[in-house]
Structures are given as C-alpha cells and as structure tokens.
C-alpha cells in the first residue's frame, strides 16, 4: 500500500484499510448498518492524501477547514429543509455541493453518503431519502469533531 511509504507526520495508518487519522484522536471503524446501498467503507478522512495534494501546506488546509466548518453545516441544513419541503431539485443540489466539498477534503465515507443522498434525490426516492440523510448526518457528526481538533492543532 502506497500510504506506508509516504506517511506524513502527525497521522497514522490503520492497518489493512488505508485510513489516515490525526494522531492522538480516537478512531473508530464501523460498517454502516443503516445503508443497504452504495459502498460505504469505515468512516474515514484521508489526511495523508489531502496533505500530499496541498504539498503539506498545513496553513492552507486550516483555511479550507474553517470554510468547511461554516459551509458544511449550512449545506446540511439546506438539505434538511429541502427534504421537509419535498423540493428534490434543491435537495439534489445541496447533496451535490456537499459531495464535491467532501471529496475535495478526502472525507471519503461522508462523500459516499452525500452521493447516495444525491442519487436518491434525483430519483425522488422518498423511502431512501430519510435514511440517506440520516447516514450523512451521522458521518458529518463523526467528522466535525476531528475537523475541530485538527484546527486546534494547527495554528
């Protein structure tokens, strides 16, 4: 696995699954029991991938994470509102935006959850939407404390 060769400082690789997490943070792996679709892997945020993409620029990562903290909550709120109003085009757009953001930050499980939500919204599949949003919510709730902690580490 390539990750073993170039592991960055302050990050660790979970054996066998290529999951990078900030050092010192509690890590948990779980399979998403509520989602019968998609290919959700254990909750993950690939910090090594993202730092390599930014040439190790921690300051830039911090800048992006601050934007993420503000925007992700808003996008999730937009998705909730759109679902409550059965506004499927708005829900598709909110999920698409979140998916792009999460992919950009190598937050892979959450990005997959957003992709599932986008897919269900496009199909207007009411049965899947509630569960997909719940899964995305859960993924985001897993991620945000890690983001907060990372922001605390890098001043």
């Amino acid at each position, binding site marked *: 696995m390539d990750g073993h060769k170039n592991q960055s400082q302050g990050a660790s690789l979970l054996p066998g699954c290529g999951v990078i997490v900030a050092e010192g943070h509690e890590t948990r792996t779980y399979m998403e029991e509520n989602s019968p679709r998609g290919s959700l892997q254990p909750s993950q945020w690939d910090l090594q991938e993202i730092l390599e*993409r930014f*040439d190790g620029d921690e300051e*830039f990562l911090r*800048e*992006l994470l601050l*934007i*993420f903290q503000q*925007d992700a909550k808003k996008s999730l709120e937009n998705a909730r509102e759109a679902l409550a109003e059965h506004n499927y085009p708005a829900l598709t*757009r909110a999920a*698409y*935006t979140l*998916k*792009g*953001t999460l*992919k*950009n*930050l*190598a937050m892979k499980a959450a990005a997959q959850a957003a*992709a599932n939500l986008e897919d269900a919204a496009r199909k207007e599949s009411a049965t899947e939407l509630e569960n997909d949003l719940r899964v995305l919510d859960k993924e985001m709730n897993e991620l945000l404390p890690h983001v907060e902690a990372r922001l605390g580490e890098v001043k």
Partner: protein
Amino acid sequence: MRILIAEDDSLSRTLLERTLQRAGYDVVATADGSEALQELMRQDSPRLALLDWVMPEKDGMWVCQEVRQRKDQAYTYLILLSSRESKQDIVFGLEADADVYLTKPFDVDELKGETAHR
C-alpha cells in the same frame, strides 16, 4: 497562462484558485455562470475556462453552450468540472461542447496535461 474558474461553492473555489495560482496560472475567479459568461465575453478574457457543472441559476453547461454560439471571438478551451462520475454524465457534459470533462477532486497535473498544447 490565464484561466477563468466558475464555482459557486466557496471551499471548492478557494481550493481551485489557490492550486492553480501555485501551478503558475493567472486566475480569474467567478461564483456563477452568468458572471463567468460576462468575463468570457470580454475582449481580453482568458481563453481557458474551468467550469463547475452544477451551479444555481446558470450552470457550467449553459456557459459552454453560450460560448460556443459566439463565433466572433478566439476559441475558448472549456473544461467542465464535476463530481458526477457516471459515463452518462461525462457523455452529456461533452455533448454540451466542453473540450474536456474532469471529475472532482480536482487534480492540477491532469489539467496541465489537458492544456499543455493549448
């Protein structure tokens, strides 16, 4: 080389702008399709544009179609950027007269490869 980007999501826009600047591009950043088209219609506009497909109101595909209808300007090389990855989406994107379709997360080396001879 000058490049226009159109991206409504502020995180993705910041990421694109900074990555491209670091790679040596002179970046004109816009937040929606209308603003992007306005910039691209200027005489001295960039001849290379990276457009997010999905944006509120006017999207990247709309910009592609509008630019291609204008015959009185030098050719603009249009790249659609999206997190939609299905073959159907890619074909649909290219049918809108984009030159290239790239998927997120954005890879600057991929862009450099696509634009090296432009």
